[in-house]
């Protein structure tokens, strides 16, 4: 074996220099090649150009823009930031009750159980859902002349007070359909992968769903049918990412009626 003689110190220095030089050049060259391909060759073909290759910047500047790219038009002014959620956390249900007695009770009932089938129940809906709908009525993202008149007179804090008040009330009893059509139960529980339809229950259930998803059980069936039809036609478009529009747009009118009957009273 030829390992006997070890290099003299001056050789050592030369060997070291060579290692340093080649290691740094090698690592540097690889980085340069990767940068040229990643930032110039690939990105010149993709969206956003060179700045697009950099990061966050090109994807979305604001949550509004996120929603916009997904849905084509701005669906809502409400974003679930810590500030919005904080507003609901600090809200006062008693102040909400006081306004409700005055202005909402004639249609929705003081405790959120509607006085007639023409009006939706509010009792037991998540505060986020109620707050969002009120904001959307006020800003015109959800269109209803009747509710716009109601909501435009309210401040954000009052909307939050109303939301926590109704959220704390006991929901209307849901009349369970004894013999629902199997195809409808299938849509609710499993959706329809062939159409890319997610199951309703993935979002509309006690534990599921994005922030602000309303429960459906116990609402007047006619109201649910009207909302689904409006989503399908694009007349109601305040849903973030257009997700209810996408879902409703894939349903047939018969399915909409049956789903409304399944969930509603």
């Amino acid at each position, binding site marked *: *074996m030829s390992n006997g003689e070890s290099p003299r110190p001056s050789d050592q220095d030369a060997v*070291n220099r060579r290692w340093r030089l080649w290691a740094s050049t090698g*690592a540097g060259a*690889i980085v340069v090649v*990767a940068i040229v391909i*990643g930032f110039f060759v*690939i990105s010149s073909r993709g969206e956003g150009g060179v700045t*697009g290759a950099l990061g966050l910047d090109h994807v979305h500047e604001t949550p509004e823009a996120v929603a916009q790219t997904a849905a084509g038009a701005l669906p809502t002014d409400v974003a679930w930031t810590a500030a919005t959620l*904080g507003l609901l956390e600090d809200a006062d249900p008693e102040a909400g009750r006081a306004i409700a007695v005055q202005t909402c009770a004639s249609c929705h009932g003081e405790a959120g159980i509607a006085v007639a089938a023409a009006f939706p129940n509010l009792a037991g809906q998540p505060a986020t859902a109620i707050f969002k709908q009120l904001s959307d009525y006020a800003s015109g993202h959800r269109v209803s002349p009747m509710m716009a008149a109601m909501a435009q007179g309210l401040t954000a804090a009052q909307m939050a007070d109303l939301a926590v008040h109704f959220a704390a009330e006991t929901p209307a009893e849901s009349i369970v359909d004894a013999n629902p059509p199997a195809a409808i139960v299938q849509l609710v529980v499993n959706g329809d992968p062939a159409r890319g339809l997610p199951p309703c229950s993935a979002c509309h259930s006690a534990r599921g769903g994005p922030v602000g998803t309303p429960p459906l059980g116990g609402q007047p069936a006619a109201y649910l049918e009207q909302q689904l039809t409006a989503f399908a036609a694009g007349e109601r478009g305040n849903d973030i990412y257009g997700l209810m529009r996408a879902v409703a747009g894939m349903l047939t009118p018969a399915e909409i009626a049956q789903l409304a009957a399944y969930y509603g009273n």
Partner: protein
Amino acid sequence: MNSSPNRLVAAHIWVAFIAFAVAAVMGAWQMLVRSPIDAPLETAETYFVSVTGHGALMAYVLPTLFVMGFGYYVAMTALKQPLPGLRWAWAGFYIAAIGIVMAVVTVLSGQATVLYTFYPPLTGSVFFYLGVLLVVVGSWIWVAVMITAMMKWKRANPGAAVPLAMFATVANAILWLWTTAGVGAELLFQVLPASLGWTDSIDAGLARTLFSWTLHAIVYFWLMPAYIAFYTILPKVAGGRLYSDTMGRVSFILFLLYSLPVGMHHLFMDPEHGSGFKFLQMMLTALVTVPTLLTIFTIGASLEIAARLRGGKGLFGWVRALPWDRPMVLAAGFSFIMLGFGGFGGLINMSYAMNSMIHNTSWVTAHFHLIFGGSVVIMYFAIAYHIWPKLTGREARSLTPIRVQLWLWFVGIVITSFPWHILGLFGQPRRVSSFDFANPEIAYWGPWTTVSAIGGFIMLAGAALFVWNLATLYRGAAADRTMSYAMAVHQPREVPRVLNGFGLWNTLVAVLMIVAYAWPIAQFFFLDTYPAPVQRVDVGG
């Protein structure tokens, strides 16, 4: 050698494997829950308690404590000098032990079902994060002891080549220091303040970026003991020599360089980074093939030398001449087979485009059980079996239970992970507690998950037999306590200075990390970002 340093090594390794055994029970139970077979206590809540516990014990406790224990052992036996800072080392052990207890109790009480990757804005009890942080602090003491031991040895042996086993161990210690910086920053500046209620929002994009800094490098930290055994123990046990000491050094250096600036390959599907940085890090990721191929070649050549010395003949016929009855050789054989399959899967994971096909499916869990649970952990077993006679002073009474145990683990891993990969290709999501197998759309997954679950129980049997072996088998003849490492064919007395220390390599790591991560992290401070509201899992609501 007096017995206290040996107790230090044994204490670390025992804690590592007790954690492993507990987590193996959880793993087998999880398998049942995901299969059509009914499991006791089956609810979504208990499932996520279990997965968080299993992941944290297997990914943080087992490897960290094992690497620490083995590192202390290498520092004493390869350098043939007493461990500097023995008291510090014990302090590190107790700090880590307290952290483990804290984290495990918190998870089991349901206060931190956030999974071992933390997943902010999910936020659990502060004691979980503090527990994990204490384990890291304990391991930083280990890093300091490893570096001190090498420096001390170099001063005492000017100009001499640091033994390869120690050189690799220090490479791993330095790698670990770099690795933990990412997750450490995430915990200190984002997760802990949220968990303490000081902030009500957390920037999930930044958190994921910092975690990605850690996530790939930690895998190499886990892997290093296996590679150290391949280079410095296996050739000798097989009856030969290491083919090249220099190849070993270069490989360990390349692992240090190219396991760090690459973590963004875990974020291919994330929106917070641009394609340029993703491509850059993908390309750097591909460079791990270099040390991997160097290793396959060097270890293959070393084994061939051993086999031919034992009379092996033929182009590949020599493989049969290897002493397969020796646990280290048997384990290494299994490890290579699993690395082969796992490496193939890894190529798919790291490809920007193919990744989208398997993203967040069972493929991913199957992949890391094969590579990490299989290839790496089987070498942890082999190392423990190898050094136990030297720690206890007694040989094993019989090698049969050891061979049976290695076979059980290998067969268990294969039966578990092969169907699990296929389920991933079918689209089965990971981290989901139960499936409705009555649904015709996915009913055909049922048999595959059942087979996989059976494999899980074979693994569990292998885990139990391993602990039993360590605890009861080493009561045989008096053993030779000296640990010796494989000599190289050309055993160097001196090597170029750059291959005997980490100055240059640390500088290069720093440069690469700046190129790869400076802007991706800095952008969160320059651009308008929208942090996500904290979601607590430890309070009702």
